[in-house]
């Protein structure tokens, strides 16, 4: 589908973007506790009724915040994340056998997503040695030290949230709403960016572009956050 998208003006409607997110697909999402997760795309996925998703992201948000909304409404059959503690629905569904959950240490998860995004097969890392996190993983010894082989993660579709985009898909983020977004943006075969503001080509400082447009296929304007933050 990638070929039909314009490389010169990537701005599309929500409806056009949501077409690419289909039942059973692998969906990677930016955000950390919901901060930096694209609210309008989440709503669009909910409204379209997409189901059986494999979700890949840092966490499962909160019950009514971020990706948590999809988890709570049982739109996912599997989640790969570093923690699900802030969304009790995820834990309940896992216990009930209705949601498969694969955990990675947070930094390892970030590197697995990045590795997928930059075309590596994976990384080796010593985090989790001596814990159950090493179960089922290849060991590799380098200079007498043990490492775990951690495989790259990619997705059919990645969704990210940014502060500004130009029509070429160049992105800048906003403070800690950056988090996993630049990594997730690289790892999707199709990447959709929801942004607060669309600026003309040339308006972004080339030194400060966090995600070059090469990684972004579609840009949609956000309708804003439609949930209440936990601290509110």
């Amino acid at each position, binding site marked *: 589908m990638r070929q039909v998208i314009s490389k010169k003006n990537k701005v599309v409607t929500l409806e056009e973007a949501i077409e690419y997110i289909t039942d059973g697909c692998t969906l990677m999402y930016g955000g*950390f*506790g*919901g*901060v*930096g997760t694209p609210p309008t795309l989440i709503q669009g996925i909910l409204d379209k009724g997409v189901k059986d998703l494999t979700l890949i992201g*840092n*966490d499962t948000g909160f019950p009514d915040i971020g990706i948590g909304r999809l988890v709570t409404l049982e739109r996912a059959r599997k989640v790969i*994340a*570093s*923690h*699900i*503690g*802030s969304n009790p629905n995820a*834990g309940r569904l*896992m*216990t009930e056998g209705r949601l498969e*959950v694969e*955990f990675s*240490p*947070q*930094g*390892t998860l*970030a*590197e697995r*997503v*990045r590795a997928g995004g930059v075309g590596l097969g994976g990384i080796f*890392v*010593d*985090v*989790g040695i*001596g*814990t*159950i*996190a090493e179960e089922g993983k290849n060991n590799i010894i380098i200079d007498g030290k043990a490492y775990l082989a951690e495989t790259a993660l990619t997705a059919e579709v990645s969704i990210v949230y940014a*502060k500004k985009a130009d029509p070429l898909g160049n992105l800048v*983020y*906003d*403070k*800690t*709403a*950056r*988090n*996993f*977004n*630049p*990594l997730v943006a690289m790892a999707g075969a199709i990447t959709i960016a929801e942004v607060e503001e669309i600026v003309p080509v040339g308006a972004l400082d080339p030194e400060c572009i*966090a995600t070059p447009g090469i990684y972004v296929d579609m840009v949609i304007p956000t309708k804003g*956050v439609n949930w209440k*933050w*936990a*601290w509110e």
Partner: protein
Amino acid sequence: MGMGVAVRNRIAKRAAKEIHDGLIVNLGIGIPTLVADHVPPDIHVLFHAENGVLGTGPSPNQGEEDPALCNAGGLPITTVMGASYFDSAAAFGMIRRGYIDITILGALEVSETGDLANWIVPGKRVPGMGGAMELAQKAKKVIVLMNHVNKKGESKIVKTCSLPLTAKQSVDMIITEMAVMEVTKEGLILKEVMAPYTVEDVMAHTEATLKIGATVHSIE
């Protein structure tokens, strides 16, 4: 943690004494978050948050929160001069490379050799490890803040962890509402006792082999 604000702040205050000028510190959620408030203003510390910021400042005033500026626990923060933002891979790069001088976090169990368990209770709660494995394994100094005993009254400071580990031999110091203990090559050492508890109280509530330090200070 099921303890009052005064006790939580007392633990946080004691932990803050470990933070010296020039250090880079990562605070976990819960009591550790309170530690920042107890660091004297003349001490220059850079607080690191693993979602992607170095140089966090005090909590914002109510009504001045920025939803795009939170710590790893999702709570609104501010930043200090010289702060920087980066993605979470870069944030964990700093952790794995050993640049975090002190990490302060909670625990379910700590063993006398410094093994840490804080991410899973089999058959009950499986919240996930988040960034705790990296922080516990890689920070230069790991300080655990927690209740001395669990809800059943059982010691959380044990000979051997029964829960799945977060990291082996990683904890350097444990601060509870009862005591301050250090994990050393000579074993787990009782360094300080929090009033009104006595050395005997602490020993009675500790399953691990706890050696009494040469000089056990009492904290009022």
